[in-house]
């Protein structure tokens, strides 16, 4: 993970139904990326299915950024209708700049904190162009603010609207030009140092996970749509087809997970993606995968819970069900990507581990990771050389699907293999697969299923750790974004702390964690939950862990400033 930028600018764009806010947010991010900047953009919507108010929340920086900012530098509203619902999502400072359209109504109370208000004639200027729209005026203005040449914007608009025809391109370019020029020459553009040129990618965590899955070798997906996992599936559907795989839209999650088991047993690395409610429906079959030792990957893009909860917002509260949601003693793999880019390698690794360990692997992403778009450095190309341990079948020899071995791995035969015939079973069984209720068989198989997971060497990826110092922050998944940034900023202010985040949550890399925490005398656990699911899990595996808990349930993101505040308080009370 790279160093934290010192220069970041955060922009919130607002508008109601059909104002095209997300479009200009996306274009602005691309423009910034083409200038060489890094950035993230997340979206927020009102409750309307379509046509309600929306917000694009951008953060641009000279170094990679992975979390929401402490506050926004600029809020620009094409109109302010229902904008107060976004108040919590865009904290402001006295020196934040609020930009309104003269025809867009009055800014809501929450913008009162900011002292700089400016009114632009967005609608008026848009009317000067045929088919002109005020969002394009705003985009032009923002492009200039960003320090762009108009040609950069023109080229981008040309590409973006290419399939809508020349007229649309023309109107967009002209309207943007009006906005660009309105910015004027007196005012200086924002000052972000441009980083060195390097290959950049722009993608969401859902795309990163989808691509990582394909790279890992996933060739079959069965799934049922659910927010916020659907776009991961939508990314995969056409692409799977192109690489010789297939996606089955199943009738429900019970069907998807069982279809995945069937396909995997047939030899194809297989995956499903879902969110909390869907995961809840899958736990019975996950137990079957544990018992039958069938590899598979489930990406759970977490959202606000419990129950239907808050489907469009992020939370880290499926940790409990992912770790413990199976009945019986059912050890399995749980992983969590540590950021948007990291979703790629973590998902790819999950496929590798699932296939190698003949185990279901759950990948805990979340709505923030999944649906935020980030500009990142082109990631290194990783190849785990994933290969399932297939049985070497000798003619005449009796094949034992669940042979009890020293490392716990039983070579797997798949249908079609001569001499590998067996019945995979969810009943407890003898090594041959024959059902058994004998204590000796149950114990031998329980031991073996646990051993293969616990004795395996997971290597470096299992636990991320950065920094040094006597204060340690322990977190997981998307919370690393804010913790990483907090560490960078604290270090810049002269306080060194460490940040530790296991990428592998089960089996928990206890030794790596202890090592990473060795010498730390104060520990802060940071997680986006209500009562501290992660802290409790850490305690259960690292008994006696003495830690302070910063648990914030969703829907608001954890901001680096909050983490810094906690650390500063800990500094006071040794």
């Amino acid at each position: 993970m790279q160093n934290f930028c010192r220069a970041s600018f955060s922009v919130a764009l607002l508008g109601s139904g059909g104002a095209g806010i997300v479009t200009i947010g996306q274009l602005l991010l691309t423009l910034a990326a083409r200038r060489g900047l890094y950035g993230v953009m997340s979206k927020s919507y009102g409750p309307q299915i379509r046509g309600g108010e929306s917000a694009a929340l951008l953060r641009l920086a000279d170094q990679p950024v992975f979390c929401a900012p402490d506050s926004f530098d600029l809020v620009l509203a094409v109109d302010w209708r229902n904008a107060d619902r976004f108040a919590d999502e865009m904290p402001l400072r006295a020196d934040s700049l609020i930009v309104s359209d003269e025809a867009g109504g009055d800014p809501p109370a929450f913008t009162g904190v900011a002292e700089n208000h400016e009114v632009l004639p967005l609608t008026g200027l848009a009317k000067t162009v045929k088919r002109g729209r005020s969002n394009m005026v705003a985009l032009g203005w923002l492009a200039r603010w960003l320090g762009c040449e108009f040609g950069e914007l023109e080229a981008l608009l040309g590409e973006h609207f290419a399939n809508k025809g020349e007229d649309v391109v023309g109107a967009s370019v002209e309207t943007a030009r009006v906005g660009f020029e309105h910015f004027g020459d007196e005012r200086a553009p924002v000052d972000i140092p441009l980083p060195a040129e390097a290959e950049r990618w722009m993608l969401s965590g859902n795309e990163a996970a989808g691509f990582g899955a394909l790279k890992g070798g996933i060739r079959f997906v069965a799934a049922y749509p659910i927010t916020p996992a659907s776009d991961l599936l939508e990314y995969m559907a056409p692409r799977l087809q192109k690489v010789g795989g297939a996606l089955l839209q199943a009738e429900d999650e019970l069907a998807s997970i069982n279809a995945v088991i069937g396909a995997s047993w047939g030899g194809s690395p297989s995956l499903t993606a879902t969110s909390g409610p869907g995961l809840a429906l899958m736990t019975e079959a996950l137990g079957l995968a544990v018992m039958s030792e069938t590899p598979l990957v489930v990406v759970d893009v977490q959202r606000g819970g419990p129950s239907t909860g808050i489907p469009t917002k992020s939370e880290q509260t499926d940790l409990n069900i992912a770790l413990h949601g199976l009945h019986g003693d059912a050890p399995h793999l749980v992983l969590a990507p540590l950021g948007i880019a990291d979703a790629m390698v973590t998902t790819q690794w999950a496929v590798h581990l699932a296939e190698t360990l003949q185990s279901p692997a759950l990948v805990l992403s979340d709505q923030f990771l999944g649906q935020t778009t980030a500009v990142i450095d082109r990631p290194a190309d990783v190849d785990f050389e994933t290969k399932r341990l297939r049985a070497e079948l000798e003619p005449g020899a009796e094949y034992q699907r669940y042979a009890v071995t020293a490392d716990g791995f039983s070579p797997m035969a798949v249908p079609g293999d001569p001499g590998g015939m067996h019945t995979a079973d969810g009943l407890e069984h003898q090594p041959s697969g024959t059902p058994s209720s004998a204590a000796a068989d149950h114990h031998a198989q329980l031991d073996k299923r646990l051993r293969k997971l616990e004795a395996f060497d997971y290597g470096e990826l299992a636990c991320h750790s950065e920094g040094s110092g006597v204060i340690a922050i322990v977190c997981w998944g998307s919370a690393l974004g804010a913790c990483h940034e907090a560490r960078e900023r604290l270090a810049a202010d002269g306080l060194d702390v460490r940040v530790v985040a296991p990428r592998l949550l089960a089996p928990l890399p206890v030794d790596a964690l202890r090592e990473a925490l060795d010498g730390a005398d104060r520990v802060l656990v940071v997680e986006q939950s209500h009562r501290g699911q992660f802290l409790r899990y850490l305690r259960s595996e690292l008994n006696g862990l003495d830690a302070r808990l910063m648990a914030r349930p969703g829907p608001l993101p954890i901001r680096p400033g909050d983490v810094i505040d906690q650390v500063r308080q800990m500094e006071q009370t040794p």
Partner: protein
Amino acid sequence: MTANPRAAKAYKSSLKPVWCPGCGHFAVLSAATKAFAHLELEQKDVAVVSGIGCSSRVPAYMSTYGFHGIHGRALPLATGLKATRPELTVVVSGGDGDGFSIGGNHFLHACRRNVDLTYIVMDNEVYGMTKGQASPTTAPDWLHGKLTPQGSGTRPFNPAAIALSSGASFVARAFSGQPNEIARILCEAISHRGFSFVQVLSPCPTFCPEQKKWKQVVRAFDDGPTVNVEEALSRVYADDGYSTGIIYQDSHPVWQPTLGEEVNVRAFEQEFAI
């Protein structure tokens, strides 16, 4: 139907079934092995998938590949398998509880989707494995259901009618008292391209001793298979549920993804370029 009995036996495993003496499922197991023998399938290329129930114990009694999954979910498991391994013969076996109660939704959607599977439901109108509760096909006034002491009071599920109205492309009924007929129908079902549904009336003497009378009432349908759904439904409605034979067979589009690789995964990297 010709099948060398020795050849059929080769499809049985050495495991002794847990079934009660007189259970109808024995005959279904034997008939399936006969059909495999007749079709000269290789054991290694057959996968028998099931859920949970007495009837779902079949896979382990076969020398083919098998997957004894969880209750009610055999069809989706088999669907995933067949979608990715189209060259295998995939047969699903289960009971009326497994298939029509907890698994009812998958049954509907399997009929629609028409994946090339053969689904054998051994219908004994009871949950045998859990010791005698009413199933969807139980008569509403059967007083021996352990959770329905006054009868279920519920119209029985009509498997053939539901399969037909869900769009199944092959619908048949057989009786475990006529193993050769089961084997014949299974040969047709396995050879049929698409989803073939075979309901086998398979008595549970332990919990429904009254089913011993089935052998007196079972008879063949007057007509052979039709390609007309309405016609097939009429036959089913005119019937008391004890006529056997292939009721309907037609060719419907089969859901089977083409699995050819067009591009390498790396091709997608460029999509992320800015």
